[in-house]
């Protein structure tokens, strides 16, 4: 199974390479390569280490996670993260107990507001973790969501 994912990863990246040489992708999109290792990491620390090169983050009251306390359907858990922290560079969403905790990573521009909203899958009751990179430092917030029907596997 591992080998298969690896092979698929290689094929995907070589396809991106082909698209680049064919001039289909702009160079800027290439710079923002998809963080393969961070997404395949099996723990929160591993994912963070791979994504941002650090596992140290301080809890911040300036990050708000809006998500249900109880999610009846783990396949669709709405989550909104908003922050009043200045100079937000990125917002990452992790589901601690998913097979691969990192669910999504958002890179914000200088004129973006510290706000993203999406829907994620949760395998079981777990903490949702939001990591906000602001001015080069990492800040975090957590919220537990109880899941009655899981959204992974089947």
């Amino acid at each position: 199974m591992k080998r298969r994912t690896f092979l698929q990863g290689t094929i995907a990246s070589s396809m991106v390479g082909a698209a680049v040489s064919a001039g289909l992708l702009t160079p800027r999109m290439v710079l923002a390569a998809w963080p393969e290792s961070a997404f395949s990491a099996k723990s929160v620390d591993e994912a963070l280490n791979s994504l941002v090169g650090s596992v140290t983050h301080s809890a911040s009251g300036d990050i708000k996670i809006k998500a249900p306390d109880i999610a009846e359907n783990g396949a669709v858990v709405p989550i909104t993260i908003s922050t009043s922290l200045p100079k937000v560079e990125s917002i990452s969403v992790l589901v601690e107990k998913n097979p691969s905790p990192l669910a999504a990573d958002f890179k914000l521009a200088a004129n973006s507001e510290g706000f993203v909203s999406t829907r994620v899958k949760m395998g079981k009751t777990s903490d949702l973790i939001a990591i906000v990179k602001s001015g080069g430092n990492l800040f975090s917030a957590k919220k537990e969501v109880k899941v009655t029907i899981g959204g992974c596997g089947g």
Partner: protein
Amino acid sequence: MAKKSIRIRAEIKGDVTEVKALMSHEMETGLRTDKKTGEKIPPHFIKEVVCEHSGKQVLLANWSVAVSKNPYLSFKFKGAKKGESVKVSWTDNKGDTDTDEETIK
């Protein structure tokens, strides 16, 4: 991939533009097995979403399989005017891609 897989709504309030986008995509995790054949269903998901306003990137989203089916994305940014357009494009792990544009209301 079906045509017009993205629906965008962009609304300006004061100086902040809120963009909401809904994409239709199965977002297959690769963890599920086909109940009839017992074989693993291969992953098929959107990896990257790029949102642009007048040629400048305002948001880049890197997604894993943990983003729900038919993904919803909302974000806010400053510096846009009514009548300008916002562009949203996605690329999935099979290299399929789609782009759509919407005028800011």
